[in-house]
């Protein structure tokens, strides 16, 4: 016999006055007791999960609020458009803004093609086996290498061995190496998300493998690839350790004129002001101001890329 909703609520109301056969009421009692417990568990879990989500959102909000409160007073037109003056206690941070923008841009220009090409090889061409597993292991471990190790690698390889010196290009290459695993990983995910039916349809029409990838798979996975690029770029732009040995210097009043020039960069500038500046206390607001600019720059780049991505998504629909 089915326990319908009506029977259930009837029994519920006239509890203690069993009108139904005994075994039914036993079942109903069990169901009811269980129901109460389940409801409680649901409630507790829901609250916990929501709490976790709120803490996350709050953290970002607090960081931004804290930065605004301490740094907003430093943000003037002069701060954004002038070079540092009087041992970096006055003036602006223009060389740092330009330096970080160029580093991020350069890193992504280098890393994106290599990363996407690697992901295409791994996901579309490579046959499963020892070689593929080894490459994958390498990439996964590369993602876990601390950023300071990338800095030392950049110093040893690009700066010293390839004789590029402490320069914009050394920094870009080091940051590119750092963001490669992120880009490869997310590109692979994006390629995996393209249904095989697209590939089959394309091959079935007499397209070659490359035509299939170029005309169908890549366009369909472009939004996902862009997400990877955004993540890689954000990570690269905010890093300090990889550029402190390879690209950034304490102070240079000139904007870079060639890719072999030394540069100033926002994260490194913050680090310098906060640990080795001529007057750490007096420049506190400049440190916050610089951090605020860095956050704004990274968020700005993210936003731009997200808008771009959603446009492509719309076009695909």
């Amino acid at each position, binding site marked *: 016999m089915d326990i319908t909703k009506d029977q259930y609520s009837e029994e519920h109301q006239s509890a203690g006055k069993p009108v139904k056969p005994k075994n039914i009421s036993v079942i109903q009692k069990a169901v009811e007791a269980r129901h109460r417990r389940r409801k409680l568990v649901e409630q507790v879990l829901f609250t916990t999960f929501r709490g976790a989500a709120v803490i996350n959102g709050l953290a970002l909000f607090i960081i931004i609020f804290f930065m605004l409160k301490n740094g907003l007073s430093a943000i003037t037109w002069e701060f954004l458009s002038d070079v540092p003056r009087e041992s970096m206690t006055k003036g602006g941070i223009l060389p740092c803004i330009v330096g970080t923008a160029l580093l991020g841009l350069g890193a992504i220009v280098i890393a994106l093609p290599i990363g996407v090409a690697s992901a295409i090889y791994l996901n579309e061409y490579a*046959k*499963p086996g020892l070689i593929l597993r080894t490459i994958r292991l390498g990439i996964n471990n590369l993602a876990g290498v601390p950023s300071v190790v990338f800095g030392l690698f950049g110093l040893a390889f690009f700066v010293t061995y390839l004789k590029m010196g402490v320069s914009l290009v050394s920094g870009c290459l080091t940051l590119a190496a750092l963001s490669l695993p992120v880009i490869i990983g997310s590109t692979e995910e994006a390629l995996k998300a393209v*249904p095989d*039916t*697209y*590939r*089959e*349809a*394309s*091959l*079935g*029409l*007499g*397209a*070659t493998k490359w*035509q299939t990838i170029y*005309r*169908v798979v890549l*366009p*369909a996975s472009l939004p996902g690839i862009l997400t990877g690029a955004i993540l890689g770029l954000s990570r690269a732009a905010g890093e300090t350790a990889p550029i402190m040995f390879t690209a950034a210097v304490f102070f240079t009043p000139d904007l870079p004129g060639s890719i072999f020039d030394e540069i100033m960069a926002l994260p490194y500038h913050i680090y310098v002001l906060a640990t080795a500046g001529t007057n750490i206390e007096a420049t506190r607001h400049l440190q916050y101001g610089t951090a605020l600019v860095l956050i704004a720059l990274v968020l700005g780049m993210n936003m731009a890329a997200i808008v771009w991505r959603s446009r492509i998504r719309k076009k*695909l*629909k």
Partner: protein
Amino acid sequence: MSPKPKMTSSNLDFYYGDFQALQDVNLEFHERQVTALIGPSGCGKSTYIRCLNRMNDLIPISRVEGRILLDDEDIYEPSLDVVMLRRRVGMVFQKPNPFPKSIFENTAYGLRVNGVKDKGFIQNRVEESLKRAALWDEVKDRLDDTALGLSGGQQQRLCIARALAVEPEVLLMDEPASALDPIATQKIEELIHELKELYTIIIVTHSMQQAARVSDMTAFFYMGKLIEFGDTDTMFTRPKLKQTEDYITGRFG
């Protein structure tokens, strides 16, 4: 019946790793005929149809033995260009799978990848193919709209148009109507009827009625073997084997 078959498979075996999915399949397909492949799930009929344009090449652990001839050419010959083969042997899949592109670009896709540059030619061929697939009247005013906005039945006819645009000689259809409602299914079946004037059609179907309605010849597969092959009318009225009769009448499957 024309004397020379368009496609022939002889002693065809197919393996997924150690599992033998097809065993000694011998079949002939003639021009301007529809051949239906029927049988219960897992009987190998989809595997078989995917051997005919070497779609199974995409599965790394698969292996084929035996021969499949297209006209007089062995399609598993190493010297054969599989890209050319797939242009000659087109395929329509179970689930409509238009690309996330415009209706026009979907139809023109096969031409473009095969190197056709002439805009006028592409334009004409797109129109012709959509007409042949009985879709033209429904989409002629919105060729630049995305194909993903079409209904399931329209999408499947677009996939047929897309396949027709490259002028295949053989058209493989792997349960082309199984994801569609009865009205869309009927349209596809009418279409198959018209298309058989021009192409050799091989269709996998789960529906006995569909096989009986659209096909001239029927092949019944069971457990990786071809059990019975003959003209559809005879097969559905006086099957030679008890096993075929049981399946057709729904006693097992």
